[in-house]
């Protein structure tokens, strides 16, 4: 007999999704994770637009990672125009990404993930004994917002026109706040490292950016456990496909599902994790690599500290103001990969001699995680069925698993268009 488990309107994730599981003889025979967001066709929307207007449009793909879309689009277009960013520009971009990461992780950890582990329906229902945790979360979110606002002009959908001079006073304020937030972050790590996660181990590949000196955010090599990927070759390795039942795309790396996000970054960047974080990991007996997808929550908590330390170091060594390079419009082709809160984000553009976009391809983190999520859900349910877990508990664990991935279905859904755009361009060029 075929049993079905349907989860309609999964809550506490970004965007809209349904899960449909078919089970026969205590084995999962079908696992469909369906994004149910309407397609917004972003890649088609920028076709024919001037280079200057692109960032304003693509940042609207996602309210959570708008800084990542902003930075990725600007960097890809700069590459197309053969412009090298100044040190100050890179500095601003790094901080924009860090601010966004802090608020995104804090929102996910406390508001979306944590309530599950206390059997509560939402963070609003956590009792007075947890009030401090929520206050910590809000103060971390506020700090992240403040950073994005100072460097990007507003909290969501930032501007990236470099200002004449960065306001020194607010940087000092941010520096103090970063330092003051550390005890809260260390508490966060303790909290999430000690939650009871389901034991669920599996092997997979992890993809992210890697830099020799820094924990990479906006540049670096694209690495996986199986080796390096050249920026320009990313499409040969990462293939997107459309599945009949969903409005999002699904990506495979060399025909295999893989994982991006905090867990991938921590696993692949062990060498560049700062000493303070390393010490805390030792104290808490956290050993790498992470192999349990639920541990993405711990990885995110650790990243809060890594990025806070990174931001402090950056601000303390702020570069001098430099003259901006002038923009000369020419035709070109550029690709940029950056680390968004949820994982590696690719933006690729071709522009013509009038500075108009003729091609655009965007691959978001959730698109890359979807296959792995489906395979993990199937694996987990099989394990739970073997352990004779109750149906109610299965649903609960599956929801926890989906949330631990911190999926963003807004991001994953505009990308239906990729394929037809490629066809469109191949046919017209």
């Amino acid at each position: 007999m075929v049993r079905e488990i349907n989860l309609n309107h999964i809550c506490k994730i970004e965007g809209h999704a349904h899960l449909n599981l078919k089970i026969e003889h205590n084995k999962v025979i079908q696992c469909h994770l369906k994004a149910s967001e309407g397609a917004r066709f972003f890649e088609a929307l920028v076709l024919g637009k001037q280079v200057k207007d692109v960032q304003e449009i693509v940042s609207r793909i996602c309210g959570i990672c708008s800084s990542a879309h902003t930075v990725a689009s600007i960097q890809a277009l700069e590459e197309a125009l053969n412009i090298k960013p100044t040190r100050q520009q890179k500095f601003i971009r790094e901080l924009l990404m860090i601010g966004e990461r802090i608020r995104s992780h804090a929102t996910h950890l406390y508001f979306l993930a944590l309530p599950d582990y206390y059997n509560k329906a939402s963070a609003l229902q956590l009792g007075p004994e947890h009030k401090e945790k929520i206050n910590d979360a809000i103060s971390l979110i506020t700090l992240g917002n403040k950073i994005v606002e100072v460097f990007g002009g507003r909290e969501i959908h930032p501007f990236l026109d470099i200002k004449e001079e960065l306001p020194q006073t607010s940087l000092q304020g941010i520096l103090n706040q970063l330092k003051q937030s550390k005890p809260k972050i260390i508490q966060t790590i303790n909290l999430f490292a000690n939650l009871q996660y389901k034991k669920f181990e599996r092997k997979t590949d992890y993809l992210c950016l890697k830099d020799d000196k820094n924990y990479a955010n906006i540049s670096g090599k694209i690495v996986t456990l199986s080796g390096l990927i050249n920026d320009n070759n990313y499409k040969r390795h990462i293939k997107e496909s459309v599945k009949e039942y969903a409005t999002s795309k699904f990506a495979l790396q060399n025909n295999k599902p893989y994982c991006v996000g905090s867990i991938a970054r921590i696993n692949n960047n062990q060498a560049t994790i700062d000493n303070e974080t390393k010490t805390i990991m030792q104290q808490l007996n956290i050993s790498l690599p992470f192999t349990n997808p639920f541990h993405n929550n711990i990885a995110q908590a650790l990243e809060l500290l890594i990025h806070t330390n990174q931001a402090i170091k950056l601000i303390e060594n702020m570069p001098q103001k430099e003259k901006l390079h002038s923009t000369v419009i020419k035709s070109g082709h550029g690709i940029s990969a950056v680390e968004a809160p949820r994982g590696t984000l690719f933006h690729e553009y071709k522009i013509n001699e009038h500075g108009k976009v003729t091609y655009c391809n965007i691959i978001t983190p959730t698109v890359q995680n979807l296959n792995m999520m489906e395979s993990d859900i199937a694996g987990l349910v099989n394990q739970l069925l073997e352990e004779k877990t109750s149906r109610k508990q299965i649903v609960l664990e599956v929801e926890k698993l989906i949330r631990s991935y911190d999926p963003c279905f807004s991001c994953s859904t505009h990308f239906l268009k990729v394929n037809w755009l490629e066809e469109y361009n191949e046919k017209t060029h």
Partner: protein
Amino acid sequence: MKQKKENTTEKLKIGLYGISGCAGCLLTVIYEDCFTEINELVDIKAFPLIKEDNYKGPLDYCFIEGTVCFDEDIITLKKLRKRSKYIVALGACSHVGGVPSMKNFLNKDKVMRFVYPKYNHLKSTNPTPINKHIKVDYYLPQCPPSKKEILEFVQAITSNRPFRLTEDPVCFECRKKGNPCLLNQGQLCLGPITRGGCDALCPTNDTICYGCRGPCPDANIHAFKELLKEKGYTQKELVAKMQTFAGLQFKEFEEEKSTWLEK
């Protein structure tokens, strides 16, 4: 779990929902201090972005973010309309269509030819603001919406005060702030025809106004076009800018004005 009655009976029942969109508007609500205050003023009964047990019964005010991008969105909207005394369009997408509504101005034949037959499971509709499908009582414009305005709105409805959007254009606030005029600097800024209330956020950050709050009631688009012509811009360039967020509304506004002039 039922909450204690004395806490909730007095407060307005609020729902916060999203259709196809980026979640930026809903995040604006939870970011920072304004959320704590809103949470104290009203009873947030439903908020699927951060809540699991969402109330399914009648609501006083229902906030909706996002653009209608496929049939399911319309079904969601109609259900929400039935349950709610007042519908509040939250943010540019829901108010004027936002960035996704740009698709209305693309060559649909071309889009269709390439989208189908391969992806015929995709039922996409023309991206439209929510008032094309249901009656909307209030608008909180802008992309992303202004925290100040959201809070002002909640304060107004909880204390029975009227809520009105400013009718002045963005230029009004921009001048007041003493910003140098981007139009005069050779950038195609939509400040003169766009509804203010955003404190001229974009021009203050050296970015042109893309018209995300839609046309201001007194906008003279005709005169603006003439001005731009003098400055050497083509009609096409202006239209492309107007289409970024509120293309549908600017177009309707222009058509209404011209028929009104003819009368």
